[in-house]
């Protein structure tokens, strides 16, 4: 299958007290379209740095990142912005929803930036919220939602514009086990049903049990890249889904 993300001997250094600290050191990685991949490792191992580079919100000190065959290190700022807008969805550890927007308006935002008409925006935002089981909470502002609900709104926002790649940086770090498992299940279902490529970082061992491919980092280097031999099972049904099935197929 075609590579969606290719990292070729990528390094990233940060200046610290007149010295350079290497957060990533010659990392190479190939991610095919439709993969569900976890980047694991302890704090400071370079997970977030690698996600930032793949998400084109940071640039490598050396090496290059290709998204859908396009060398992102050669793009202008405007081209990089456009690439992120069209091809990448982000889920953040702290949800990062716009507090003055309702859940529905937050989900609409990527479409607003893309210049999608209002009616179409509303229709797709509704479908995205339904797909994460939050249609009934569409009119609520983030401060009235629970942590789990907020993160599901963030997932809906990340997928509403049908990106090729969804990046999630420690998406379960602020969630309890139940909500964390639900979120991973949701992401996995969206991955299966919509063919979205998910790359997320985590250091939660429990979540890694549900992940078919795990890239482990330590001190900025890839120490292992493993594929699960057995199919992943989901045992906890999503809230708001009576049949225990994630309705990802409703995203159109």
């Amino acid at each position, binding site marked *: 299958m075609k590579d969606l993300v290719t990292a070729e001997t990528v390094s990233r250094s940060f200046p610290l007290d007149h010295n350079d600290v290497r957060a990533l050191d010659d990392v190479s990685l190939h991610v095919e379209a439709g993969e569900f991949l976890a980047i694991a490792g302890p704090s400071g191992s370079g997970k977030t740095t690698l996600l930032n580079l793949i998400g084109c*919100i940071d640039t490598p000190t050396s090496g290059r990142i290709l998204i859908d065959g396009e060398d992102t290190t050669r793009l202008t700022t405007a081209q990089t*912005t456009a690439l*992120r807008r069209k091809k*990448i969805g982000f889920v953040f550890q702290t949800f990062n929803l716009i507090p003055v*927007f309702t859940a529905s308006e937050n989900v609409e*935002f990527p479409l607003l*930036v893309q210049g999608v008409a*209002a009616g179409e925006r509303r229709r797709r935002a509704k479908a995205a919220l339904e797909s994460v089981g939050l249609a009934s909470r569409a009119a609520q502002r983030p401060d009235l939602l629970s942590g789990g609900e907020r993160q599901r709104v963030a997932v809906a926002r990340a997928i509403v514009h049908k990106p090729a790649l969804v990046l999630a940086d420690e998406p379960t770090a602020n969630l309890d086990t139940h909500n964390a498992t639900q979120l991973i299940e949701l992401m996995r279902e969206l991955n299966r049903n919509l063919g979205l490529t998910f790359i997320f970082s985590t250091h939660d061992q429990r979540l890694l049990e549900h992940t078919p491919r795990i890239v482990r980092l330590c001190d900025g280097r890839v120490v292992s890249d493993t594929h699960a031999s057995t199919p992943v099972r989901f045992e906890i049904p999503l809230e708001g889904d009576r049949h225990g099935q994630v309705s990802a197929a409703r995203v159109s």
Partner: protein
Amino acid sequence: MGKFLLLAFRNIFRNRRRTAMTLMMVGGGVAGLLLAGGYFAFMTNGLRESTIRNGLGHIQIFTAEHFQRDEVRVLDTGIENWRQVAATVSSAQHVRGVAPRIEFYGMVSNGQKSSVFMGNAVEPDVERNLGFSQNFISGGDLDAKPGSEVEALVGAGLAKSMNVKVGDGLTLLAVTSDGALNGIDVDVAGIVQTGIADLDARYLRIPLSAAQRLLQSDRVTNLVVGLDATANTDRVYDELLPRLNRGSGSVKQQMTMKKWIDLATYYKQVRNLFDGIFLFMGAIVFFMVLMSSINTLLMSMFERTREIGTMLAMGTPHFWIIGLFMTEAAVLGLLGAVLGVAAGNIFGVMLNALNLRLPPPPGYTVGILFHIRHVPGIMIGSSILVIVSLVLAAILPSIRASRLQITEALAHV
């Protein structure tokens, strides 16, 4: 666009206390400008109309010679066939009437004491019809009935120095157009106040016919034209100027016309002074809003650093971020302006209801009514001023926001 505006609008009310403070500052600035501008407008408008009504008229007609040389003899640059000129002028649209005038100088005596006067001769009925009013302290207006005694109005200062009251007699002495000395007796019909102390000490008014007899001339110094509205001055001026200099009939003299604004030197000085003060006040409000808003908007940007980072990560163009901050500033300015206009007008109505009167300024003898005019031009101008000021204040924060490093912004606590 609607969602974008909605986002800007909601962002404004995130920190309600800070927004309230900003709105109070912006609104206070606008209200202050409205009150000051409204008062200045009342003053200049009142001064303009009183200047016109006190006898200046809307247009004055002179011979062209009047401004080219000094008079060798009394009235030798005056208008000769003034009745025909007046008839031509009266036929024009918007002209309410034409008042002939003679300006002259002489000596006034009560038999014991003499003083210099600045004489002003008019046709009382025409002046009254045009609404040219006098401020009487005692007595009444001139009566120019044929056969009656010649009457005079005397300035308050002159009356005091000559120790005369209504009904007393005075003798006027002046040089005739032939260079001889002539005199007439007049009865004081009224004592008037012009509002300017120096003029009150020399002011004297008599009927036109009496002045022509005293000066031995049929000429008049000028014709004062009264219009139905001050706004028609330019239109009538443009219409009359070619008509008067066509040289028709017995009018052989070249005529020149002056608009009230050309003759109202004092009015212009006062208006320039008020304009200068208002401009200064506007500049203070502008910089006050600018400086405090920069701080407010920078704080707002700082508080929303992570959110801006999120928006940028999602592919929001940089100019959107700039536009968002600019729009927020403009909406804030607009709200402040609306509040300021409302507050300024309410305060204006309240102050007007109090009927306050200010003490007379130096050189004046009467107090000035304190009144606020509601001028749409000032409301619009002040609103634009604060909106522009806020938008300018948003430039720095918005550019800083749009240039945030996404990774650093996302890590912002």
